[in-house]
């Protein structure tokens, strides 16, 4: 298990992965807190026993027949967004072809 304290650079990277825009003061605030928590949960590295297998009855898929049922209307589904166009949610471009 990875030992050693989490660094501000790592916190910045994690925040970026999680789409959280942290300010520099926030990064400084969170770094020691996260370090303490990660350090605490790291104690599981001491557990060497093999775990029992997950019972078969716990792992089962649930399915239903492929029938169409009424659902939310488009108007209703779009109604809570501040950014829509016709029947679409508007978002930033993911692929930039320029």
């Amino acid at each position, binding site marked *: 298990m990875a030992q050693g304290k989490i660094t501000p650079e790592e916190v910045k990277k*994690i925040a970026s992965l*999680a*789409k959280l825009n942290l300010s520099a003061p926030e990064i400084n*605030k969170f770094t020691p807190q996260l370090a303490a928590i990660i350090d*605490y949960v790291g104690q*599981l590295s001491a557990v060497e026993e093999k775990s*029992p297998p997950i019972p078969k009855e716990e792992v089962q898929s649930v399915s239903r027949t492929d029938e169409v049922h009424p659902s939310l209307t488009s108007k209703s589904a779009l109604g*809570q967004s501040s950014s829509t166009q016709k029947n679409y949610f*508007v978002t930033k471009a993911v692929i930039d072809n320029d």
Partner: protein
Amino acid sequence: MTKNKTISQITTELACKKYSVTELIKEYLDRIKSENPKLNAFITITEKEALQEAQEADKTLSQNPNIFLEKPLLGVPLAHKDLFLTKNIKTTAGSRLLENYLPQYSATVVKKLSKAGAISLGKLNCDAWAHGASGENSDFGPTINPADPTRVSGGSSSGSAAAVAADLVTFATGTDTGGSTRQPACFCGVIGLKPTYGRVSRSGIVAMASSLDSIGHLTQNVYDSALVLETTAGPDPYDATSSNLKVEEYTKLLKKPVEKLKIGIIKEYQDGLTDHDVAGSFALAKSTLEKMNCQIKEISLPHTKYSVATYYIIMPAEVSSNLARYDGLRYGHTRDLFGDEAKRRIMIGTYTLSSGYYDAYYLRAMKVRQLIKADFSQAFADVDIILSPVAPTPAFKLGEKTNDPLSMYLSDIYTVTANLAGIPGIAIPTGKNSSNLPLGVQFLANHFQEAKLFNLAYQFEQHLHA
């Protein structure tokens, strides 16, 4: 015993026309308006809707006096934790990110309770996203403990516990992912139920950790808790993890004799009971069970010392996934409105799931979780019910733990195990300390053994107040 009206008291009094539903609901709404400014239990009060439903209930009752057979909760005032989606009624999850969110559908449990006739008076305050064990992480201010205005109500179902204790509602819904129904129930002196994972549908309830979330409720007494579960439990096509197992008539099984039931006491917890009041409450519970001719047996849960660490890897991992949907595009505001605790948990989850760390943290935690579950399976081969404390201390002071997130996490020690194992638990008050702060204990049972849990809890409650 509580002076607050219970569900059965209300339905009896409505049936014999002691008062109308409208009069009853008006009385509760008046009390909410008077007390809520001090307690901050409610985020939204739905006065107009409640009075409308009350009038309809009075009409139904006058046309069909036997309606209680079909609608066992007719006219009973409740409120929902603000994680429960309520169609066209603001649902915030305790967060400014959703401060203007109007759900377009209601949670399955909301629909079930409404169909049974219960009348919702509003939406209850909670730690934002259910992240917390005090109520202090709510973006709408903490809920105050009705027993002491300087202390927390517990969390994350803070408003639910305070509202039931202060008689603002007869019962309230809650969620329990790591203790969030049982701990505030204990801090406020009411009954808090965490059903078996999958016993009650999670559909339409803001997800925290999808393998740990359990949908519970807080009530004035054990009978009411059993009655509410009869309504909320059952399979739901909208929740693939909901169980098809038959829902028992829990209220009819309360008076079964409990002599000779084997009650387990966890060996590993005994040294940790350092708080004088909590130790006293536990000792009282043990001696009460002995007077009831139950057999007390020491059991060992050897992996219980890893519970908090296991929980604080698995839960944030699932939180980081569940909170990814809040991108401000389809509903709510942008992610910068997450509070500190949400950001911490999202980041811990992202870290432990990330490449290079996944095996060492998340996968390891999932394996330890199986060891913890196996400990409980082994224990329940030996005993019927486990008796345990709920929290290391009674309700603590506002601000006491807010500077140290890890210290707050460690206070979950007695509650997270039930969530990791998926088993049911019920928190019951045992009395008060010398400062009038409520004290309690919890009973835990094996999967889907709620009938056994309620049976013992009911008799225990009767004995304590005999």
